[in-house]
């Protein structure tokens, strides 16, 4: 019981700290459109909570990254970007995210779509910081 409360506190503090560190850092990013830190929600995710932080990088060949960096992080297994319509499929563990990039040329572009896993599905909406 005490351990679970402690874990929840640590998880909450990690997310808050991540949000604080990323707040107000909407740097222009004119390179690969997925690169950067993204914050938003995957609504109805009872397992991991509504809030989500995604960090992605581009090495010239593949996009790699992490969902919720910290104690409960989830490594991104694959990212497929279709530049013809800027649609994106992200796979991380049991999760699949189908979304598309909106407001491509804005520093605070967004990635909007749906998430799904064996535990459920819902809307997915994150904004680049």
């Amino acid at each position, binding site marked *: 019981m005490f351990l679970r409360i402690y874990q929840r506190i640590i998880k909450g503090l990690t997310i808050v700290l991540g949000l604080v560190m990323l707040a107000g850092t909407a740097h*222009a*990013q*004119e*390179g*690969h459109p997925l690169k950067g830190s993204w914050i938003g929600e995957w609504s109805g995710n009872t397992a991991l909570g509504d809030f989500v932080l995604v960090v992605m990088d581009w*090495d010239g060949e593949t996009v790699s990254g992490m969902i919720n960096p910290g104690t409960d992080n989830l490594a991104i297994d694959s990212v497929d970007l279709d*530049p013809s319509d*800027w649609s994106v499929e992200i796979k991380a563990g049991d999760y699949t995210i189908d979304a598309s990039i909106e407001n*491509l*040329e804005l520093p605070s572009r967004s990635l909007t779509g749906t998430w799904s896993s064996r535990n459920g599905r819902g809307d997915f909406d994150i904004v680049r910081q």
Partner: protein
Amino acid sequence: MKQELKKNRIPTPVKLLAGMLAAVTFSTVFAHHPIQGKFDPDADVQFSGIVTRVDWRSPHVHVFMNVREGNSMVNWAVELENPYILINNGWHEDSLQPGDAVSVAGMRARNGSRQVWGEQVSLTDTGRPVYTVNDTSPAKPLSPRPVPRWSEDNHPVLGAVPGGADGIWGYPTSKALVEDGVNVGMNEYGLLDNVADAAKVAPMQDWALARYIHRQERDLRDDPMYLDCKPPGGPRQYQSDLGLQLIEDKQNQRIFVLLGSGNRNYRIIHMDGRDPVGLVGGDDDNPLFYGRSVGRWEGDTLVVDTEGFNEGFWFTNGGLPHTDRLSMVEKFTRTDFDTLHYEVTIDDPGAYTRPWTVSWDLSWVGGAELPFSLCQHNRQ
């Protein structure tokens, strides 16, 4: 006195004819950023009115005028070129004065406000053009003047000759990156005549090509140099109409590249044999707008290696993308007193499929000084 506002959608053949005439006679194609970011090329507007004020300051001159709209009088702002460019074309702050009747044709602001980019400004009574700009480099001597050289090492002098007249490099023969040997039509802002030619411009990866096309289709309005005053890093600094200076600091083994306008931006090329990195343990992991540059002489050519760029800017007019994996090799050769040949090889495995090379010339503008202006953010 005619004072009426006419919004019109000019038929394409008329536009083409007007464009050809403008190219032959005069033009205002000398902007240092894509004006399409603020003004809509498809929203032509024409009107006549009375000048109320001339705001003669950088980065752009504005002429304010009263124009009759129906039964009321409204004030329009006509945006023109940089004062430096207008002065170089023989114009002055008092070339127009309050009370003058003028006619204007241009592009209206995208936000619908009463602002217009003045493509043609003329006196209403006589039709005489005002504040026109000719995009022609200074005439060169019939016999090329020899390359000036430093007495101590016989290397070419890259800038003004010590003790001689000042000057700057300007009038680049190319204003947007296109791989050498490729022939595509584009305007002075890097906007392609035919966006279907996009893939020919450079060997882009799929995402980079799609992003380039997206920027082209939006008329380059997302240019962060215009919207957010981001510096013209990379080769873009040699594509500006506002010129640049190369100052060789022999004692400290470095070369300064000073840029016309643009918030007193400058770049340093280190000539002391160091590696292109920052202070180890200090700022070495901080990517920069101008990267980190080290140079060396190969014969009469200055060869500069640069890496360590950030991704917060467009590295060329026209909107070709780059990533932080960008590195470039630049070659500067003063082929005669009045000509600087610039060549750059782009290597960015994050955005391109192979290295590619572009080259162009700049002209010596003797007696000129770098213009200064402070950029203003335009994001709304």
